[in-house]
C-alpha cells in the first residue's frame, strides 16, 4: 500500500500573552491508502491542532512554523492558506468532521443547500445533479427518507443525524482522506456505535483513508489499524494497534491502559491513575514532558532532552530512555 499522506516534523505554535504555546511539536506520521489510523491523546495534547494544521485551518495567533505535509506527492505547506490549490484540496481531497454536530452546520441553510454547495463548488456539478447526488449521499450515511428531509433545516435533525449529514458532506467530493476529530464524543453510546460502524463502511466504499482523532482507547482498539499516542504536543508512541495494546512500551501508554475501567475486567480490579497533571505547554522543559508523572524514570531522563522516536521493532516506536521491556510489572 502506498503512502497517501506523510507529515514530517510538523510544528504549530500559538502566540499568547504569557508565552509561546507549542501545541504541535515535531510531529511526524504517515497514512497509507485505505488505512484507518488512530490519533490518541488527552485534551490539549495537540491531536486536533495537528489535524487542523494538515487542513491549514490554523488561524492567528496560531502558526505552522515548521515541517512539511506531503499529500499525494506535493508539500501542502508550499501553498498559502487561501490559495486556490489549498482550497481545491481542503474539503474535497481531505475532508474533516468535527466534534460538535450542533455548531458545525449553518442553521439558516437547509441540509440540501449545504450538501450541494460542496458538489457545485468542487465538482462543478449542475444544481440538479448535485441535488440527486446529495440525496444519494444522505441515503448512504443512513438518513431515512432522504428525499423528504433534504429541504429540512439542521434544527430538525437530532445530534446523531447531524453528524451523519456532516459525514455525508465530508464524503461528498470523494476525498482521499477523511479526518474525524472526536466524531462521536458528544453523542450517545449506541449512536456512537452506529456512526463509527457506518463511517468505517463508508471509507471502505469510497476507498478513502480515515484518521480517527480521539481520547477513547476503545474506539481505536476497535477500528484503527495503526495508532499514534500523543502527549504534550508530541507523538510518544506509535505502532500497530495490536502491538500498542498488547506490548505498550511508553510509560504514558502503559499508564493510560491501566487507568481506564474495562467492561470485561475482573471484579476488584484497582485502577492505577497517572498521578499529577499534564504539563503547561508554555515554558515546557527540554526534558521529557511526561517525566514528572512517570514511574519508570531513570537518571538519564533528567539530564538529556526529550528522546527521539526510537524503534523497538519494525513499525513500533517510542520516545523513552527507560527500558520498559525488562520489568513486566510496574516498578517501585
Amino acid at each position, binding site marked *: 500500500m502506498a503512502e497517501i499522506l506523510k507529515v514530517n516534523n510538523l510544528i504549530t505554535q500559538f502566540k499568547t500573552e504569557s508565552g509561546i504555546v507549542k501545541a504541535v511539536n515535531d510531529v511526524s506520521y504517515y497514512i497509507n491508502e485505505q488505512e484507518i489510523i488512530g490519533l490518541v491523546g*488527552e*485534551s490539549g495534547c495537540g491531536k486536533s491542532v495537528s489535524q487542523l494544521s494538515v487542513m491549514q485551518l490554523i488561524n492567528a495567533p496560531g502558526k505552522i512554523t515548521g515541517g512539511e505535509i506531503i499529500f499525494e506527492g506535493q508539500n501542502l505547506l508550499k501553498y498559502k492558506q487561501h490559495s486556490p490549490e489549498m482550497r481545491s484540496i481542503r474539503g474535497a481531497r481531505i475532508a474533516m468532521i468535527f466534534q460538535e454536530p450542533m455548531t458545525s452546520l449553518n442553521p439558516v441553510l437547509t441540509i440540501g443547500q449545504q450538501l450541494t454547495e460542496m458538489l457545485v463548488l468542487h465538482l462543478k456539478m449542475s444544481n440538479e445533479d448535485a441535488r440527486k447526488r446529495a440525496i444519494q449521499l444522505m441515503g448512504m450515511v443512513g438518513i*431515512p427518507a432522504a428525499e423528504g428531509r433534504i429541504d429540512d433545516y439542521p434544527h430538525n435533525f*437530532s445530534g*446523531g*443525524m447531524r453528524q451523519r449529514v456532516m459525514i455525508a458532506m465530508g464524503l461528498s467530493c470523494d476525498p482521499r482522506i477523511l479526518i474525524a476529530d472526536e466524531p462521536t464524543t458528544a453523542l*450517545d*453510546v*449506541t*449512536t*456512537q*456505535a*452506529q456512526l463509527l*460502524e457506518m463511517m468505517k463502511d463508508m471509507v471502505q466504499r469510497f476507498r478513502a483513508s480515515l484518521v480517527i482523532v480521539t*481520547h*477513547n*482507547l*476503545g*474506539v481505536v*482498539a*476497535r*477500528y484503527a489499524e495503526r495508532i499514534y499516542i500523543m502527549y504534550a504536543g508530541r507523538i510518544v508512541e506509535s505502532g500497530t*494497534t*495490536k502491538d500498542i*495494546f*498488547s506490548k505498550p512500551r511508553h510509560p504514558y501508554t502503559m*499508564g*493510560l*491502559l491501566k*487507568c*481506564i*475501567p*474495562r*467492561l*470485561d*475486567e475482573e*471484579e476488584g*480490579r*484497582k*485502577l*492505577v*491513575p*497517572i*498521578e499529577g*497533571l*499534564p504539563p503547561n505547554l508554555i515554558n515546557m522543559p527540554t526534558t521529557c514532558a511526561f517525566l514528572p508523572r512517570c514511574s519508570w524514570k531513570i537518571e538519564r531522563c533528567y539530564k538529556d532532552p526529550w528522546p527521539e522516536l526510537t524503534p523497538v521493532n519494525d513499525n513500533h516506536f517510542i520516545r523513552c530512555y527507560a527500558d520498559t521491556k525488562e520489568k513486566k510489572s510496574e516498578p517501585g
Partner: protein
Amino acid sequence: MNQDNLILDVKDLKMYFPVVRGLLRRKVADVKAVDGVTFKLMRDETLGLVGESGCGKTTIGRCIIGLYRATGGQILFEDEDITSMSEKKLREVRRNIALIFQDPYSSLDPRQSAGGIVGEPLKIHNMALNKGEYKDRVEQLLRIVGLDPSMVDRFPHEFSGGQRQRIGVARALACDPSLIICDEPISALDVSIQAQIINLLEELQDSVKGLSYLFIAHDLSVVRHISDRVAVMYLGHIMEICKSRVLYENPLHPYTRALLSAIPIADPFVEETRERIILKGEVPSPLNPPPGCPFHPRCFMAIPECSQAVPPLRTISDGHEVACIRA
C-alpha cells in the same frame, strides 16, 4: 436483602414534566422522564444507574434530593418519604444526601474561594460551633480529597478540572452524608484524571462506614467498575438490574446487550471476537413513547406481543431482574 440496611427505597417513581402552551399555560402533554421506577439501595452499597441521554437517570437523582417533586410513587430515604415532605423538612434531610455534579466548571461558584465552597454546607446547617472548628473541618475536608489545605483561599478558576471535581467531592462530604448521588462525576474529565476521581470515591467509601453511592453515568464500563449493582435505564424505565459482575457475563435484556456491544474495549484482540449489535434508529422522544415495551421499535428480538404492555421487572435469579418478556 436485610431490610435494616436499607437506606433508599424507591417505589414506582414517576416524574412527568408538563409541556405548557399559550398564555394560559395550558398543559398539552407530559414528558414522561421517569415512568415507574423501582429500586432499593443498601448501606455501603453503590448502585450504578446507566443509560443514554434522556433516559431519566439524572431526573431520578434530582427527585431523590427533592429538587423535583415526584409526580407519583414513593422515595423512602431512611424510612421517610421524600415525595411528601415539607420544604423545611426537606432542607434538613439534604444534610444527609449530597450531590456531585458532572461539570466541574459550572458547579462551583466562581466568586467563592475553595474553602468557602467546601464550608458552605457547614454554614447552611450550622454545623461548626466556632471559627476555629470551621477552619479545621474545611482543611480536613480538603486533605481528605487530596488537595493541599494551603489552597483554601484560591478561587475555582485557579484549579484544574480534576482538582475542581475534588472540591466538589469535599463539599459533598462536608456534612457526613449517608448517600451521595454522583451525577456523571467524571465524564467531563480527561482520561488520566478520571481514574484519580474514581479511586478517590472508592477510597472514601471504604473508609467511611455507611456511605452509599448512587452513581449515575452513561459509560457502562465506568459504572460497572465502581458499582456493586447496576440498573440499566431506557426512556424512563429500568430495563435490567443486576450485580455488576453478572452484567457483562450474562446480560439478559436486548438493550443491555446492545449497550454493552456499543462500548468498545481497549483491547484489539478482545474486540475481534465480540458480538456487535448495531441498533436501528434513534431513541424515541419521551414526549411520545412507543406503546408497550419502550425499546421494542429498535429491538432485534421484538415480537408482536412486545407492543402490548409495558413488561414489568421480573426476578430471574437472586438479585437479577429484567423487564423483557423474551429474556
